[in-house]
């Protein structure tokens, strides 16, 4: 049996193109994810927002002063303010020279062109400015001496009252992308699984016809081939994992053992899935490949690999899908290891995943056992 295993492994490894891309593509993607999300949601390279301010007020316009003084934590001014007429401001906005303009008055009005991050920043700024000025008025009406008592300083000194509970493990959207990529790579094993089944079925491939007449027990051959395929797959997963863990420093939680178990089980699921599709029906190889690709890509899509929102939509409207979707099971298992202290959710996910694998494997087994062909 070892001979068979060795021969098949050699055969797989010699298809250099296949090995190269299967190993390389998740690493390429992980790199892209890393670059995309590395910079996301941080304001490190914050650029001042260009706005225009239309006002009749002179030098002592408080809003104008507040806008000019506002800056981010590292000193970048929040706004670059142009002082124009309303007509000019409107034109500047049309030409995308500015992001918004403000009609100053006791009741400032914000004119925007589209609704984005910068517009939200401007609006929050204005809201906060106006609230503060009303506070000042109310207090001064009741306590005229407040200014002398340091009212303005007190207003400037905005305190933070809410603090994040530091239990080390915050939910992290970025991780979902990496985990679902790992899940996709695990399920990519379905390609290998499909090949192995095609390769021993006499009605599907020439090689299948050849091995059917050889004096080897078919199941023995099949198992050694599957073993070879899982070995090749393990190589790819290991490489990706090392890359994620050691180079990109992705957080996988405290202990690595269950993570490795998840990858292993996930790879078996992929393999079994491919084998099952390969063993079912008499369709053409190309059709079966398309089905496998559609299942794997579709399930990864539902897990949020492309757009993480999809994951939440599924959670909300069709939560049962997460319990039968292998990519979701793998992703959730990994995420639960990172996020939860107990292994409860991990066991559930891995349990269902293993169950699915057994079912897929069993169906594949039923599909290929004891087949004989009168003619093909």
């Amino acid at each position, binding site marked *: 049996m070892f001979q068979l295993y060795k021969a098949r492994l050699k055969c797989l490894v010699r298809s250099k193109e*296949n090995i*190269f*891309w*299967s190993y390389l*593509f*998740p690493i390429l993607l992980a790199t*892209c994810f890393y*670059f*995309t999300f*590395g*910079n996301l*949601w941080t304001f490190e*390279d914050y650029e001042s927002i260009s706005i225009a301010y239309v006002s009749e007020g002179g030098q002592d316009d408080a809003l104008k002063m507040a806008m000019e003084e506002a800056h981010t934590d590292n000193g970048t001014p929040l706004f670059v303010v142009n002082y124009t007429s309303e007509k000019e401001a*409107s034109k500047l*906005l*049309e030409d*995308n020279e500015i992001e918004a303009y403000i009609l100053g008055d006791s*009741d400032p*009005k914000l*004119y*925007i*062109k*589209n609704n*984005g*991050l910068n*517009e939200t920043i401007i609006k*929050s700024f*204005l809201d906060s400015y*106006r*609230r503060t000025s*009303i*506070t000042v008025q*109310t*207090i001064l009406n009741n306590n005229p001496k407040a200014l002398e008592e340091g*009212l303005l300083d007190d207003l400037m000194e*905005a305190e933070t*009252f*809410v*603090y994040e509970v530091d239990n080390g493990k*915050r*939910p*992290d*959207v*970025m991780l979902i992308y990496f985990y679902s990529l790992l899940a996709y790579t695990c399920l*990519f094993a379905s*390609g290998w699984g499909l*090949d192995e089944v095609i390769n021993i079925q006499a009605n599907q491939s020439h090689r299948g016809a050849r091995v059917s007449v050889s004096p080897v027990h078919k199941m023995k051959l099949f198992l050694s081939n599957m073993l070879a395929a899982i070995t090749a797959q393990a190589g790819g997963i290991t490489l990706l994992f090392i890359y994620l863990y050691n180079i990109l420093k992705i957080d996988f939680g405290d202990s690595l053992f269950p993570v490795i178990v998840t990858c292993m089980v996930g790879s078996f699921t992929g393999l079994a899935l491919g084998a099952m599709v390969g063993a079912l029906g008499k369709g053409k190889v*190309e*059709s079966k*490949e*398309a089905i496998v*690709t559609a299942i794997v890509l579709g399930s990864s899509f539902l897990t949020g690999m*492309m*757009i993480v*929102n*999809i994951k939440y*939509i599924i959670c909300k409207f069709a939560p049962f899908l997460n319990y039968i979707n292998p990519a979701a099971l793998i992703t959730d298992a990994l*995420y639960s290891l990172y996020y*939860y202290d107990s292994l*409860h959710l991990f066991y559930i996910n891995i349990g269902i995943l293993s169950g699915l694998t057994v079912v897929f494997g069993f169906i594949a087994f039923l599909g290929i056992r004891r087949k004989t062909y009168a003619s093909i």
Partner: protein
Amino acid sequence: MQVFKLYFKIFKQNLFSILVYTGLFVGILVMISLNIRREEEKKFTSKEIPILVVNEDGNNNLIEGFLNYLDAYVTYVPIENDEEKRKDALFYNEVYYILTIPAGFSEAFLSGNEVELRKECIPNAAETVFVDTAINDYFNMAKVYRKHMPNLSIEELNFYIENNLDVETSVAFNDNGSKNVHKGSDNYYMTYFNTLGYILLACFVTGVSHVLLAFNQLDIRRRNSAAPISNRSINIQLILANLVFVLSYVVVFFVIGYLFNPNKVIGMGTYLYWLNTIVFALVTLSISYIIGITVTSKNAIHAIATALSLGLAFISGMFVPQEFLGKAVLRLASFTPAYWFVKANDTIALMSNYSWENIRQIYLPLGIQLGFAAAIISMSLVISKRKSQQAS
């Protein structure tokens, strides 16, 4: 036109797989469209953020007033007070924010001592920042009021703060450009066409290479080289056939985009998006073609299709808007056609009217894309020529 006809014969034989892929990508596209619509609708309705409040301090006037105030910003979601359940709720986004009011908070706050509220929230969501701001605003105001109007009762305090925080800046869309009539659908279309870029890449690389594989088998290639038809002619016919394939898909995608567009308006902006998409379809076609004639292993094609489509989609802003991406990433992405496709879409979305000057802005991104297409096609012609001269 034998090759052209042959292409569609092979196409027909592979019809089932092509249909499966089509089903997959149309399905993905429909879900994406629904997601965009949901997001857009959320933007225009006031957002109520689901949060959970764990009050360990007991009920009193201050907390009641505070929770009343906060109600304007959030929806309170009742969840069992159990560590695991709360984590689940955050994990599945049932709540975005868990606020814990620790025991003794009110007393400490009212006597002017340092106080802290604790939060757990889903990260990187703008919504949670709003909740933070709302909470901090309340207590900052309360603090200032209490300091300067020490005789204020808590009821009065709440009344003032409510009044105060009711103020909101009115926002208006600049409607100077009277020609722009379908502003609302612009955001939908921009996001739709940006994500469509991913679908085009994924779908065409898989689909086109699928059919081209048949032409690439060694024996077939030898047979074709021996035929009294030039390599160039074979290539041109193949590209033409692919073009028909690609363009018919593009039309389907346009129809889907139209059907899911909340406004169902076709205007100049729509035509510009279409034009840009067709140009990008040419680019993806050229990419698919070069992959189709160089890669022979099917698994490898799937791997490349995934890496290329998702990789480009992420770095060039098809899923995450370009304004959120880092400068270095964008610079890297600008060496790919995908970046220019997204750039053109974003530019179209920003146009307030379709004057000649505005439209001229997308010449450059369109031109660069066409340049990419031409360069890649020339490369594939060279490769194809080389291959026809090789023995194996």
